[in-house]
């Protein structure tokens, strides 16, 4: 079942119909996102909103995408392509496809992707795509992040493209098998149903559009929408000077024997196009900071989107001026079998950083200071207030600062480059009520931002006392205790993260970013000083008023 042969489509639709269809497509992804938010079960989805929605056309081109998590921006079409390739000629109305495998169109194992085909007149017209981060995906550690993994099979269940439902009937046996392989079968099932529901809503809305306009005119309108975005992006790129620029970014380590793993970007701007070449990046690592192919593509697309005007529609057309070159076997594109779970944060952040550093020479007004790196901690233990029930708590508080830019100082505690203010941390009161934890201090930490004409956003100080029933075990996963957030255009790097386990006994242990099996005893405190954002522009250009305000308000 293929789309109509080229040439039968009518010429460009009138500008009004085009505008109406463009609006409809964007409203459909927004509506799907609302449905997902309302119906998903796990905290990571309905509170932290770690999911994304996309519509692709029959050629698997990104047509519309809801603005949820930037690191998903360019990754979704690869999932549709993986399904189209695996089931070529064997896709039917009512089918439901699923994948998570980073080596078959996925980004990392915790991100499940549901992909539904949308048909009209017996031909495949669109794909409705929903990607969502699961709270667990099996594997050796709770929550999917296993810093000890040296191969992907230690990270969780691999799902290459599978047909989860056939002609309207879901395969209950498959869902049960997958749910059984996670530690939170009920969440998993609830979230899976929410994803399928949101994707079905997209299918229904697209069928309505197809019925209203007809398949061929809609194809033509979609093509025109993509062409307009392409022209928009090219107009912006054309204003930048031609030339070749290089930038690099450095990961602290891979959790094993390698320190200072370097991502290198060579950016060649010519006319209306930009080529990003990552082939000189370091070889892939033993631990999980490697990127999958689709995630690398997405990270590059994200960096490019950050450099364009925010008004540019994030669709296939917008990314046509971009050419990506990379080599398999490097840290940005690992060979099948390597662990990759950390990659949506690291090395995504460093791919962006290397590109923005390079482009700061080309379009400095658009280059922004680095956003903080992710350093997560998960604590597992028992709570005397709930006998017989264990708890697992994930650190989302004490977020790092956002980067400064030509627009002004960075946003404080707004998080990392890959989420850019899209992930929410929960209420301290709620956390204290539900977990045996006391947040003694959770405030901005003055002086953490990178200096500059505009300074980065502030990081935070967290002092967290653990009052568990008996000892807890903790894992860490992240980066950024040796390298701070990148300063740009003369702005300075921020201080790196500094996490300490302060024992009730008075002993102090500085935490590493990739460790398992830490023991935390009741009365011990986790003391976090998170990094601020990177600065932008030379500090000597910072205005006297801005410095006086920093002084007065206690930001420095």
């Amino acid at each position, binding site marked *: 079942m293929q789309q109509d042969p080229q040439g039968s489509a009518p010429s460009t639709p009138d500008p009004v119909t085009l*505008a109406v269809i463009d609006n409809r497509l964007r409203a459909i992804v927004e509506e799907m996102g609302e449905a997902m938010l309302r119906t998903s*079960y796990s905290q990571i989805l309905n509170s932290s909103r770690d999911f994304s929605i996309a519509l692709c056309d029959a050629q698997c081109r990104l047509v519309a995408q809801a603005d949820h998590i930037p690191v998903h921006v360019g990754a979704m079409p690869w999932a549709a392509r993986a399904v189209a390739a695996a089931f070529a000629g064997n896709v039917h109305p009512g089918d439901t496809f699923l994948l998570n495998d980073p080596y078959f169109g996925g980004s990392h194992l915790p991100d499940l992707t549901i992909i539904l085909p949308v048909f009209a007149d017996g031909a495949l017209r669109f794909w409705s795509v929903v990607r969502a981060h699961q709270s667990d995906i099996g594997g050796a550690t709770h929550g999917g992040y296993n810093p000890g993994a040296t191969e992907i099979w230690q990270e969780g269940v691999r799902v290459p493209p599978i047909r989860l439902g056939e002609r309207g009937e879901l395969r209950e046996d498959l869902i049960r098998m997958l749910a059984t392989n996670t530690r939170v079968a009920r969440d998993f099932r609830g979230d899976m149903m929410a994803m399928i529901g949101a994707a079905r809503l997209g299918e229904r809305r697209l069928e309505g559009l197809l019925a209203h306009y007809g398949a061929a005119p809609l194809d033509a309108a979609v093509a025109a929408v993509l062409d307009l975005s392409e022209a928009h992006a090219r107009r912006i790129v054309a204003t930048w000077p031609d030339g070749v620029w290089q930038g690099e970014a450095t990961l602290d380590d891979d959790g094993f024997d390698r320190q200072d793993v370097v991502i290198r970007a060579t950016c060649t701007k010519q006319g209306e196009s930009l080529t990003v070449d990552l082939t000189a990046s370091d070889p892939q690592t033993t631990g999980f900071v490697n990127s999958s192919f689709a995630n690398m593509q997405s990270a590059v697309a994200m960096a490019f989107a950050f450099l364009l005007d925010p008004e540019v529609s994030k669709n296939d057309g917008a990314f046509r001026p971009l050419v990506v070159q990379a080599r398999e076997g490097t840290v940005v594109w690992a060979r099948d079998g390597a662990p990759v779970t950390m990659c949506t944060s690291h090395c995504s952040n460093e791919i962006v950083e290397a590109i923005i550093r390079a482009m700061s020479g080309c379009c400095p007004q658009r280059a922004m200071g680095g956003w903080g790196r992710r350093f997560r901690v998960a604590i597992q233990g028992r709570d005397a207030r709930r006998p017989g029930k264990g708890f697992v708590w994930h650190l989302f508080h004490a977020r790092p600062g956002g980067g400064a830019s030509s627009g002004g100082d960075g*946003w404080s505690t707004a998080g990392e480059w890959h989420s850019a203010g899209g992930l*929410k941390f929960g209420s301290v*009161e709620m956390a204290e*009520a539900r977990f045996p934890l006391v947040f003694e201090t959770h405030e901005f930490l003055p002086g953490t931002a990178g200096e500059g004409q505009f300074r980065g956003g502030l990081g935070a100080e967290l002092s967290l006392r653990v009052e568990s029933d008996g000892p807890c075990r903790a894992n860490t996963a992240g980066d950024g205790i040796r390298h701070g957030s990148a300063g740009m255009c003369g702005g300075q790097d921020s201080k790196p993260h500094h996490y300490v386990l302060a024992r009730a006994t008075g002993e102090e242990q500085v935490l590493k970013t990739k460790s398992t099996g830490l023991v935390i005893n009741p009365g011990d405190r986790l003391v976090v000083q998170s990094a601020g954002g990177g600065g932008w522009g030379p500090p000597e250009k910072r205005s006297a008023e801005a410095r006086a305000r920093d002084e007065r308000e206690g930001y420095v």
Partner: protein
Amino acid sequence: MSTTLRIGIDVGGTFTDVVCIAADGTETLAKASSTPHDQSEGVVNGLRNLAIALGLDLATLLARCERIVHGTTVATNALLERKGSRLAMLTTAGHRDVIEMREGLKPERYDLRLPAPEPLVPRRLRLGVKERLRADGGVAVALDQASLDAAIAALRAEEVESVAICFLHSWRDGAHERAAGAAVAAALPGVFVTLSSDVLPQIKEFERFSTTAVNAYVGPVVSRYLGRLRGRLGEAGYGGPVFVILSHGGVAPVEEAARLAVGTALSGPAGGVAAAVALARAGLGQDLVTFDMGGTSTDIAMVAGGEAALGRGRVVGGERIALESLDIVTLGAGGGSIAHLGSGGTMQVGPQSAGAVPGPAAYGLGGTQPAVTDANLVLGYLDAGNFLGGARKLDLAAAQAAVAGLAAKLGIDVQACAMGIHRLVNARMADGVRVATVRRGVDPRDFTLLAFGGAAGLHASAVARELGLKRAAVPLFAAGLSAWGMLQSDLRYEMARSTLEAGGMPADASIAALYDQLEADARARMGQWYQGEIAVQRSADMRYGEQVFEIAVPLDGIDWQGPALAEQLRTAFHARHRALFTYDLPEEEVVLVTARAAAIGRLPATLGAQRAAGATATPLTTRRIRLEAGETEVPVFGFEALAPGQALRGPAIVESATTTVLLLPGDTARMDGRGWLEILVD
């Protein structure tokens, strides 16, 4: 005519609408220009115009008036324009940045050059005080007098007008906040003091602190305004009760509105929703989507089963307000929205608006860009000589010139461009309704679209079609419906208290005691304003153990004297979850987070009289208009002249001094004797 009157007053961005309903049901609408520097001036001007319309002098009008209900945008504007009071916050030491952290969220995901907003309370005026409660309400650190004294000394030096007192876990026990508040009030007389345990005694500090900070920010401004209003009304001879409509759609006396000023942040659009509820009760239908299209924005809300949907997720002027309020979705497009060629190369409508000045190009006040109203004029839908009943002449040539500018950029003719603007606005409105309804988990196709506000009548039929709705309605009073709705609202006072037990649910006896206490408090407060019979609605915010969003569960069917109260609440929650999200999880722990009781004092309904049967109206004239299919000549009917039961067929235009309705080909319409035009779309 010595009959008593009730008066509703809605202050909008351009006009102040004043609606009067007499004891015999006679309804009268008057308008005056709004006076943003002091809205009470426009209010009195509107009353004066109303008196003229009724052939009375102002003093006589007010002497006959037994109740004034007022919707004000003073709090909203103070927030939007950042013109609130100079405020400070006292908070738990170690947690002074809660409101500036905003839970780590930033809007506009791909705009990394967007500057961070200024916090409502500057950091230096967010002062930590040594004190700490534990999550169970126990005192971990007693309120430290020395640190409180130091904070108060700092406030004195800064000459603040208001102080928000926001301590962690104060929803469990407000004693520390009360002690600190009393100390501030004693040391700084005249300063507006507000406590988070008073404003919103429920868990989640960002929502509670932010709402309390907004209350401190707008409190003095709203108090001063309501004081001036009372003064002006007093001078004009009015000594009766003045009520303010609040964000939740109920009304309260001015004193209460001044105390909880943050509760007036959505006062403006609340009247329209109250009107929809009243019309639902009057027989329009139990399920309505309100579509209130004004000059710069459009408000969309739902009435399901005859009740307005409430929510707690409002952001006004970038600030989070977590009070229970009507769930209204606002789109940045209305009659004054400008159509333009976007930077991406497609035609767009809004968010820029022509506003009241210069207004659409057709106003002839210097506007040169095409607004939606200009397109509607070019298409022939509006009468250039009889806009606002002839109060404003429209300049067709100016409208055509404005549309022609955009048409040239798009390479199409003027008529096609005007048609395009009209279609694009309809599509945006329909998308807004879809998103608003999916948020409530509702399929809108069985709902009736209730269109009001000056601009909605021209778009109602087309928007209903886009959505697959079969029915729309436009009230005769479309342009003053919000003011009318204020006269249909009941008194309402909300009490809420969080509770969080390790096992998810308190014991049966504790649940009963909690609700009895809430109800007693709510009744006592209402009893200070109102002597009639008080009804109480109980509800609960509940969730499953691992969820973070609570859902609101009405508790109407609970047998409070019966056994197994906790189990009854659990059952009600499972059912509600199933209704909203299609599934429930009977094995899972159920958590009661916040108990609520709303005291309701029913004010007598003031619906208008049934319209008397009259002769079937004939068209006033015919007009040439442009529809999607091409140009056509259509009859124009006078809205007021339509006889109850009179049927019309589209295409046709129905117009009054304040609104115009476009019936499309295939529509059948019928004038309802209760005051609205019912449209059945093909």
